[in-house]
Every structure is written in C-alpha cells, then in structure tokens.
C-alpha cells in the first residue's frame, strides 16, 4: 500500500482542545472498551490486538444472525432478505439486458449495477452448493436452513472483505493525520466495530450496507493517504453499489474541488502542512487570486466518468433486442431514483415527518413544490459543510464534513429511508479515530432507535452493550449537553417501556403513537447531532479561535485532564 511518507512530513498540532488520549491515564477509570484493550499494550501481546478485535467483532456479528431476517416466514411478499435473494436469482439466470426489467412487481432490481454484479457472484457461488436456492421463478420465497446460513455468510464475507479492512485502513490514516496514539487507534477501531446500527441492519435485518460504506470509507482513507484518484474510483464504486452513497457526495466533491482550487494569498495556500497533492502539474492562475490545478481536476474527472462508464457499460453494450442502450440506461436510472414517489414512505425521524404532525404538507402543497422546498432546505443544510471543506480542504476535517453532509440529507431531503440514518451515524463514528474524548464518545454513542421487527433481543443486547462499553452514563461536560443527553435517554427508555407495557386506551385511539413519539424524539436528537457536528467541525477548522482567545488554552487542557482523571 501507500508509503508512509506523508506521515513523516506531518507535524503534530500545537494546540489541542480536548483530552485526546486515554493511553496515559490507565489505570484510572476509562470506559470498559479501553479496558478490554489494556492487556494488549505490552510488547508480547501487541501483535494480537488486531486479530483479537476482529475475531471478537465477528463473534458478536455472527451471534446476531440467529435472529430472524426481515420477512422470515412472512408470505406473500417476504422482505429485504427475499429481495436480495431474488436479485441473485435473476442475475444468474437472465441476460444482463433483462436485469432492470424483469417482473418488477416482485422485488424488481432497484439498486445500481455493482449490487447486481455482487448478487450475480453470490448467486453463482450459492448455486454450486444448491441449485434450488436460486432457481428462476421457482425459488421465490424459498427458505431453508442451509440457504439461510449461506446468505448470512455472504453478508459476513462481504463485510470482512470490504467494510472491515476499510475501517482498519481508515483509522490508521486518520490517526496519523491527527497524531493519535496507536493504542487509542485500536480503541477507535473497536468502537467502530462495536457500533450496533450496522450490525443489526446487515446481520439481523439483512442487507449489504457494509459494502457501500466500506467502499466509501476506503475512498476517504485514500484521500487521507493522498491517493486522490484511487479515492475517487472507490467512491464511485460506493455510489454504484447503493445510491444512498450520494449523501456523502457533495462533501467529497467539495473537498476534491477545494484541493484543486487555491486562492492566491489568503485563507489557505499550497503551503498548508496537511497538503500533499500540490505536486507541480499544470496550473491556471486567474488574476493572481485563484489558482486552479487543472491537471488534477481533469484526472479526477476522467477517473470518475470512466469508472461510472465501466460500471454501466455492460448494460449499454449488451442492451438486447427489445431495448436500445439509451433505454437500458434510462431504465436503470428510473429504477434507482424513483422520483415519482412521494416525499416520504414511512415514518422517518427527519424534518418532514416530525413537522408533518403539525403541518400537513401533503394536503397543502403539491409534490412538485414539496420537492423544490426539500431540495432548497437540503442544499442549505449541507452548504456550511461543503463550504468549509472547499475553503479548507484539510484531512482532519474530511470525516466531519462528510458526517454533517449526510445529516443534512437525512434530515431534509426527499425519499429518505429509515435505515439511511446509518450513513450519518457511521460517518460520525469515524471521527473517533482522530482522538477520543468524553464529549465525542457521548455524542457518537447516542443510539438511534433502530429496533427491527423480531430483533428485539439483538437490539436490546447490542445497544446496552454499546452504552456500557463506552460508559455513556458519563455525560458530556457542558450543562446543556448533559440535559440533552439525559433527556434523550430518558425519552428513549420511556418509549420502549411504554410500548411494551401500555395497552388499550390512548393506544387504541392513536395506534401510531409510538412511531410518532419515536420520530419526534429521534428528530430532536438527530438535529442536535447535526448542530454538534457543525460546531465541532468549525472548531476543528479553527473558525472559533477568535471567539475563545481569552481562555488560556493550556490551563483549560490541564483542567480537563483533571476532570477526566
């Protein structure tokens, strides 16, 4: 892989605002997750840390698979499991020209091409074991013990081939960028692995989100390692696996553009110490103010376009007799982006569903108008992050920007699915690799209510375990954040208990009451997370330095140290 040249060139930051290392504080009272990695600090045990963390993560992941998958024994339509199985069935039996057309009523393919290729591979391998799992048409709703194990295994293998390596590599590069201690880096890795959301959705509910997220995170890691072209290639692969990756796209675009464009003497320059990509090449200088690195920009453009091209080319080339190449691509886009649907399908904890309780949008506004408003609001929400990344494309800001951008999309955009909350959550968790402090742990620890049908046990155990591992009962320092966290937890626990115990009366009149309560609570929490990401990113970017100049930073540092101890 990449040589560690940029790491040696990197200078540690002079000022640190938060206590970022737990390594020196043992054996005071760290959170249990750090405690588990404690024995691995000695030289003889050091080489075991990575295998141990990965195998432990695997054990818990696989233990979740004993729960039911979505739509298990639930005819007529079954669920996400059947969708994925069905895609394996059609991709291995039908010519590529039929993939986006075949019997769309029964879980028609509506993900981008890489998902289809992935399904094809899984289907081929599965058919070697047992042909009946993926027999065309005959296998609809097919369920058997071995097939279930096989499908679960494809999730695990995809996860361990793509997502897990991606976070290992990412934590390595991000901790180098931020100068994080090696021991803390493994704590960060373990934190990322222990995060329950993705495990419940992928291993319990059944999906392959980890593939898309893995490609995206590999792309971020490549950006951190100054491999911009590899990064953009990987990012396009993420997008071609699942369109949801677009939540990250504006931030990535702004970051890359920011690297290619520099302003004459103000703001930041090519001499910025975190920059590695200004390696000569053709540059256009506009009026001495604006420098554009045309070469890099062009190469990036070529990479993106050609990767997309390669991804969709098979559909255009083997377009079949019934449809032209253009029709094929049009159908793909139409399937992947169903614009014709409404603003939302389900009760999602975003702006629209939460405010819809008071203001009935669908009664008062047309779909077209709503689409415009939602687009405007989304742009507004992601603008600060994109601007920051564009103006200060620093490596340490990248995960913050990406997380904020994903929150913006989740909260305000069109056609949001409940499970999309994984995107901002995972991106937000990535920042732990840049240093661990109480505030940060508390914020990333706030679990969204991702309980799925039938997975109550897995959800409860994993969430409780996660809260315990990160000691979420230790609240952040500021009073406001304390109150907020307590409120959210109290609300969440009350909701869950009430849902289990309260019957009749109010519930009969408003059967949706728990869902609505859930939406309101989560929307509140998510909005605060959005604002918090914005605040922390501004802080990291140094924008707030002017406001807190009176506070002697070294004193503050010491006080914080004392507090943590």
């Amino acid at each position, binding site marked *: 892989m990449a040589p560690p040249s940029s790491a040696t060139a990197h200078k540690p930051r002079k000022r640190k605002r938060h206590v970022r290392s737990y390594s020196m504080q043992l054996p005071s009272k760290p959170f249990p997750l750090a405690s588990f990695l404690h024995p691995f600090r000695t030289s*003889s045990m050091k080489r075991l840390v990575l295998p141990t963390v990965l195998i*432990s993560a695997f*054990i818990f992941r*696989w233990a979740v698979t004993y729960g039911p998958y979505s739509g298990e024994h639930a005819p007529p339509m079954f669920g996400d499991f059947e969708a994925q199985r069905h895609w394996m069935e059609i991709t291995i039996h039908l010519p590529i020209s039929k993939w986006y057309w075949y019997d769309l009523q029964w879980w028609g393919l509506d993900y981008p091409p890489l998902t289809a290729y992935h399904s094809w591979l899984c289907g081929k391998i599965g058919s070697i074991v047992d042909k009946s799992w993926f027999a065309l048409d005959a296998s609809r709703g097919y369920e058997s013990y071995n097939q279930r194990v096989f499908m679960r295994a494809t999730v695990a293998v995809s996860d361990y081939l793509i997502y897990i390596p991606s976070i290992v590599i990412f934590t390595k590069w991000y901790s180098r960028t931020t100068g994080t201690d090696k021991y803390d880096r493994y704590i960060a890795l373990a934190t990322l692995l222990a995060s329950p959301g993705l495990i419940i959705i992928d291993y319990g509910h059944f999906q392959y989100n980890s593939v898309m997220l893995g490609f995206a995170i590999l792309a971020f890691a490549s950006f951190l390692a100054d491999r911009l072209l590899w990064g953009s290639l990987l990012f396009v692969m993420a997008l071609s696996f699942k369109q949801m990756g677009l939540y990250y796209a504006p931030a990535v675009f702004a970051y890359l553009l920011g690297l290619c464009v520099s302003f004459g003497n103000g703001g930041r320059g090519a001499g910025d110490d975190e920059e590695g990509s200004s390696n000569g090449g053709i540059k256009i200088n506009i009026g001495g103010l604006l420098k554009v690195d045309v070469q890099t920009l062009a190469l990036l453009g070529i990479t993106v376009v050609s990767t997309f091209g390669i991804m969709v080319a098979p559909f255009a080339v083997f377009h079949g007799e019934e449809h032209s190449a253009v029709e094929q691509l049009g159908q793909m886009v139409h399937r992947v982006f169903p614009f014709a649907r409404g603003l939302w399908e389900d009760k999602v904890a975003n702006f629209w569903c939460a405010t819809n309780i008071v203001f009935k949008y669908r009664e008062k506004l047309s779909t077209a108008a709503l689409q415009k408003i939602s687009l405007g609001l989304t742009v507004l929400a992601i603008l600060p992050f994109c601007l920051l990344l564009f103006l200060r494309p620093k490596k340490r800001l990248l995960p913050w920007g990406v997380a904020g951008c994903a929150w913006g999309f989740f909260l305000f955009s069109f056609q949001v699915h409940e499970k999309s909350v994984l995107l901002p959550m995972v991106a937000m968790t990535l920042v732990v690799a840049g240093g661990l402090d109480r505030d940060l742990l508390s914020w990333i620890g706030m679990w969204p209510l991702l309980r799925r049908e039938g997975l109550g046990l897995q959800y409860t155990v994993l969430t409780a375990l996660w809260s315990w591992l990160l000691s979420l009962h230790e609240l952040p320092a500021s009073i406001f954040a304390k109150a907020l966290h307590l409120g959210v937890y109290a609300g969440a626990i009350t909701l869950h208990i009430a849902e289990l115990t309260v019957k009749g009366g109010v519930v009969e009149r408003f059967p949706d009451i728990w869902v609505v309560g859930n939406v309101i609570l989560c929307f509140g929490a998510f909005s605060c997370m959005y604002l918090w990401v914005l605040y922390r990113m501004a802080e990291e970017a140094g924008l707030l330095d002017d406001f807190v100049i009176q506070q002697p930073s070294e004193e503050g540092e010491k006080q914080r140290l004392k507090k943590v101890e």
Partner: protein
Amino acid sequence: MDSEHPTFNQCLVLATALKLLLIPAYRSTDFEVHRNWLAITHSLHPSKWYLEDTSEWTLDYPPFFAVFEWVLSQFAQFFDTGMLEVKNLNYGSVETVYFQRLSVIVSELVLVLSLRRFINIQSTPQAKKVANIISLSLLLSPAFLIIDHIHFQYNGMMFGILIFSLTDALNDNLLRSGILFAILLCFKHIYLYIAPAYFAYLLRRYCLGENIWDIQFANCIKLGVSIVSIFGVAFGYFAAIGQIPQLLSRLFPFSRGLCHAYWAPNAWALYAFMDRVLIHAAPRLNLNIDTASLGSATRGLVGDTSFAVLPNIPPRVTFLLTLVVQLVCLVKLFLQPSPMRFIGAVTLCGFASFMFGWHVHEKAILLPLVPFSLLALQDRRYLGAFRPLAVAGHISLFPLVFKAAEFPIKSAYTILWIMVFFMSFDTVVPVAKSQRVFLFDRFEIVYMTVGVPLILYTELFHYAIFGSRLEFLPLMFTSAYCALGILGSFLGFFTLYLTS
C-alpha cells in the same frame, strides 16, 4: 492490585451479552431432556419422579438436581405453563427457550462466584494475578459456551460447586470441602470419577494426623456425620419408599457399549481407530476379520461396540485400567499430601476415567480440564502439558454442535480463546525449576499446526467432497486427533505428578 484490566466483572458482562445473543441458537436434545425434568418435578409427586417414563428422556440425575429442576419450575410457571406438562414432548415455545437459556446463564453465577473466591484466597499479588488469568480462562471457556449455552446443560453451576470445594481444600478448610463435594455428588453422579482423590486426601489430611496412626476421631465423626446426613437428605426419602434400586438403575445404566456413537477422544477411540485402519491392512497381514462387527463402531448408536481385528474390550478391563492409574496417584497423594497435589490427583482421576472409562461421553473432558486449569500456571512444564489438552479438549466438543450456523461461532470463539489465553499464560507463567521432561513443546507445535487443516476438513471440505457419504470419517478423524492430544497431555501431566 485493582489495576487489572479488563476486570473480572467486565469480562462477565461481555460474556453474558454473547450468551444472551445465543439464546435462539441451536440446542440439542438435552434441552428437551431438561424441559422434561422440569415437567416431571413440577407436576408429579416425588415418589413418581424416578418412575415416570412418558418421554424417553427419563430423570437420570441424583435427587438434588431433581430438586433444582423443581425450584426452576416454580419460576417457569410465570413464563409458560406449557413446558411444565409431561405430555408436551418437544415443547419449545419462545418463552420456554428464553426461560431455560436464562436459567443456565443465571445458574452459572455459581461458577462466577467460585472463581472470584479462588482469586480472593490467593495471598500474594503475583498469585492473585495468575489466579485472575486462570479464572478468566475458565469463565470465558469455549467448553462452557459450547456445552452449556449452545448444546444446553448446567455444567457451569456444577463445576462452580466443584471449584468452591477445591478452593476450600486449597485453603485447608477440609470439612467444608468434603461437604461441598458430597452435595455435588448428589447433584450429578459423574463426579464419582474423582471421588477417590477426595477420599484419599480427606482421609490422610483430615481424619489422620501427621503420623498415620494418629487417628483424629473428632474429625472422623464430624466428616462422617455431615456426609451421611447429606446423602440422607438426598436419598432418604427414596430409601424410605423403597425406590433405591429403581433410582440406581436410572443413574447407572450398564447396558451401554464401550464407545459412544461419536467416540469420545480417549484411549478406546485410538484403539477403535487402529482397528479401522487394520481392517484395510488385514488382508496383507493375514489377520482374521470378524465380518459381523464391521459396521458396529461407526454405526451403532448406544449399542455394543465390537472390533473387527483387535480383541474386544470387556468392561472389567476398562475398570481395571482406570483403577490402576487412579491407585498409583492416590498412593503418591497419600504419602505426600499437599493441596496442590490433591488438585493434581483430582485431575488425574478425571483423566484416568476419561481415558479408560466405559462408555465415556465427550462432555466428560471437563472433568480433567477444569481442575487442570487451576494447576496449569504452576510453571512452564505444567503449561506445556496443559496446552494440548486445552486444544484437543475444546476441539473434541465441536461435534456436539454440528449444525452449519454454529460452526463460525464455535471455531472463531475457540481460536480467539486459545490465542488470547495461551499468550497471557505465557506472560505470567514462572520458569520451570527443572529441565523439561522431553521434547514436549515440539510435539505441541506439530500437534497444533495439524489441528487447523483438520478442522477445516472435518467441518467444511469433507461435505464438499463426499456430500453425505462416509459421514463417520470426519468424526473418526476428530476423535483420533483429539485422543492423541489428550493422551499426550495425560502422559505429560502424569509424569510431572509422579516426579515432582
């Protein structure tokens, strides 16, 4: 010394989380066995407990365990009364599964407490550190995970009582140690295998003084009265209603074969393996083959095992062999009694009965494994003898949980345990006082390297190559492989015990 990280409790929380996630995993017929016992003890009068035979899984544990099931059933009725009906064979509602699984997790607290006590009685900080690692290795042992939390049994609680008893012996609290062991026997009679060690040690250290002829009458009476009253409480009622013969016939079903369907990895497994090999070599060696018994060792379920080439083994041979080995270590224990040697003798009694016993079940490997764990960190030589047992003992449990969905968990967990604990053992174990006995470590390395491809073959490739044909082959390989490791461990430890 509270700076040990992770702490015992933290490991407990993590392990419990995993065990909760395993609630919906595969469970063997033992689940139904215990459900049936819940039903029997809950709905029938004690006089019927050992007579009831609606289900083929009749009550065949001693009375204390039956009472334990009765206590559990008092809670079970709040979950689902369906499981408490004798006629509801193979009843497995969600509530039943949750209740039974949770009862295993909760009853395992006995093991947890006993391990904590084992740490607490250590006097020096160094000894505490060592005891801490041993305790963690037992708490997180794959054996308990596989047998109790997937396969389904209550070994955690049983071995908890045993460790309490052994800890008392270490602490020279011999009366309590003896009482606890008597209670344990009334829970599960498999511990009779290690009773000789208790008998010899208590006799020597508690009933006799420094001089063998200096009999401590007061102690004899105390111990005798306590043990008789414990057995009286357990069996008195059944003796009064004249059911002792019936009870004994349930506890000791003698009509079984030498080897179980899956050969437990002991000396007889190696013997049977050799027999199978000789069948193919026999024509060249001009040996007689008993054609009638060709299929017996591989097919027969709980029937009689007979060999094709090698002579058959009558029960008294197994009995005699076990007795000889046990006697040798008891004599040594009797002559030079010390708490550590006592635990060594317990281990060897377990070993001997496992290696040479009649119709041994693979789960019985816990019998030598658990007490040996307490000794493993004495010095490097002990650790060297322990490691093959730890590897083979755990692998030999794999066939208990044979479904595909559990393969990843059992193998990943065992590999993780071996990796982490072998490394931790290495960091704390003191150097041996004398030289190593023989090239034991070389054997160990070769042995462990062979293990990985073997597991892959038996669990994955065999079915890919042969499908469902030759089903006994992987089992035979596993058991022969494990038997070799356990035999090596046994011989190594036996030598150490006799020479130290």
